[in-house]
């Protein structure tokens, strides 16, 4: 017989959160993206979104010897953000309680703050497996096991004969996880799950790809890195973090070319080409430094995506991706999906679902894909 509390959980979820998911909170170095999805019949709808940029570092307190930060842009280094800026930004979320339904939330840290690696481990029971994963990661990262918070999931076998199995493992410093959860609690959000980006990307992909037999390569274009995840039937089969393909290196190049600060460089990058220059596209690619830098960035990124597709074709023959799905801050670059599709050669789309009637239509919905994937956890955990 199941305990009464279990039934109460179920009743409260059915009664209170039948149509609304948790609040998904994606914590990045530049901003915190929040989203809440709603399920109407079997259709997904983005019910509420919000984005909070980190306060400028000089406005918080004078920090000595914290070099990797831009005065008006935000934190350029993840460690510095966690140590000095995150708690202050999370305090700002306290005013957003009324925007979202319920207190429950799921969060994740992007920009490579949660380390991902694939491990080959012998098959064993889940407890022993977790212990092995923790030990492996502790050895690799030269930390004590007690200092780390780890979890893993099984990947499809790419070497059928081997007596081991592949696992996607994620890790985070326990102190950072506790700090995030406690700060969210102080802001009025009860963190139920601290998820990993590949899992959230996989769920976000399953929201727009109905066919479980199709493999999709989801690409999250973040500030510090691009995360490429092969998704099938809502599960992450393989993930790569492309550290040199974040938006910050591109923004730095544009900023240097035009002698701008990072914020203005971002405005220039996200601006539609037709609004600032009426000349032809072909001419732009040679004369405009923005187009030059962006073209070079997309070319390199496409190469990495090609490499990933080649690897998946070799490793998982039956799971080769049939389409690309772009998400993250990078989708704000105009026509990025067309540019990548032209280079990679497979259909490329930007992540998008229906908007609630109380949201404006010109939102860059793809920015909130990971947060939406986190919000969806409400149904998965029922």
């Amino acid at each position: 017989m199941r305990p009464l509390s279990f039934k109460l959980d179920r009743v409260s979820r059915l009664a209170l959160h039948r149509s609304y998911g948790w609040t998904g909170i994606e914590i990045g170095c530049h901003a915190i993206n929040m989203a809440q999805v709603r399920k109407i019949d079997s259709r997904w709808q983005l019910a509420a979104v919000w984005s909070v940029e980190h306060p400028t570092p000089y406005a918080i307190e004078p920090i000595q010897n914290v070099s990797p930060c831009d005065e008006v842009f935000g934190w350029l280094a993840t460690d510095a953000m966690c140590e000095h800026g995150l708690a202050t930004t999370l305090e700002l979320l306290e005013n957003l309680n009324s925007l979202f339904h319920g207190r429950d939330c799921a969060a994740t840290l992007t920009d490579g703050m949660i380390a991902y690696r694939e491990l080959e481990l012998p098959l064993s029971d889940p407890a022993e497996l977790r212990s092995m994963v923790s030990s492996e990661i502790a050895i690799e990262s030269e930390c004590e096991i007690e200092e780390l918070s780890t979890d893993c999931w099984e990947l499809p076998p790419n070497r059928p004969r081997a007596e081991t199995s592949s696992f996607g493992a994620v890790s985070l410093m326990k102190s950072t996880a506790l700090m995030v959860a406690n700060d969210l609690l102080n802001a009025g959000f009860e963190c139920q799950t601290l998820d990993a980006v590949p899992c959230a990307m996989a769920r976000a992909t399953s929201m727009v790809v109905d066919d479980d037999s199709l493999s999709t390569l989801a690409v999250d274009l973040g500030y510090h890195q691009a995360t490429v995840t092969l998704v099938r039937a809502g599960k992450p089969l393989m993930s790569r973090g492309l550290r040199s393909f974040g938006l910050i290196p591109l923004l730095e190049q544009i900023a240097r070319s035009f002698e701008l600060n990072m914020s203005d460089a971002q405005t220039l990058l996200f601006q539609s080409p037709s609004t600032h220059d009426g000349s032809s596209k072909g001419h732009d690619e040679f004369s405009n430094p923005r187009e030059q830098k962006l073209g070079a960035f997309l070319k390199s990124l496409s190469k990495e995506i090609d490499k990933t597709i080649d690897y998946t074709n070799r490793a998982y023959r039956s799971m080769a991706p049939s389409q690309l799905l772009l998400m993250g801050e990078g989708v704000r670059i105009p026509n990025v999906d067309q540019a990548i599709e032209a280079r990679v050669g497979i259909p490329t789309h930007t992540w998008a679902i229906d908007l609630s009637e109380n949201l404006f239509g010109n939102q860059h919905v793809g920015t909130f894909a990971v947060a939406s994937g986190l919000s969806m956890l409400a149904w998965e955990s029922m």
Partner: protein
Amino acid sequence: MHVNLLPTTFVWRRRIRKRLRQWGCVYGIFGAFVFAWNVQLIGKWWNGLHELQKIHAAAEPIRQLQSDRIRLAKQSLSLQQKINQLQAAVSKDRTTSFLGVVAAGVGSTAKTIQIQEMHVAVSAKSNDSTAPAGDSQRWTNAKPNASIDSKFLGNQYILTLRGIAIESESITAFMESLQKSSLFPKIELRSTQERFVSERPVQEFQLECVGYDQ
């Protein structure tokens, strides 16, 4: 599928807090039900109290009547005792009047009759047919126990006369004289016997006359 990087200690703290909140909610709802139930009970009790007060007010005239009835019964008993006392007093005088009637009767027979013994017994007259008449002792005892529902209808006097007459016609004349007085509705000649007084024959007789209070 998902992973959870939250430390176990935080997860357990959160679960405990959630359970406490849920149980707090359950007990809160239960407490609210109990409170509502108690309020309902108090309301019923209060309404019942009001109804009782109404009934109490409505029964006031009945209580007043009962009180009056008891008071009147006491007065009635007191009056009855006085009546009995008066009747007892009057009974002695009645004996005197009997004596007068008897004397008048004797006179009507030209002194051909002589009353040798006269006895008067007084008893309470009742409609209870089983009650024995002429029991003075019973009347005396019944007096203190008389209740307001007593069937007392006055006193019954039984006058017993024993005497001698020179001839039978004298006895008849005497009885007619007593009957004329209308004091005795019932006159019965119990016995006659011939005897000799100074060698002269006389009729010894015994009469029983029954009379009542008017």
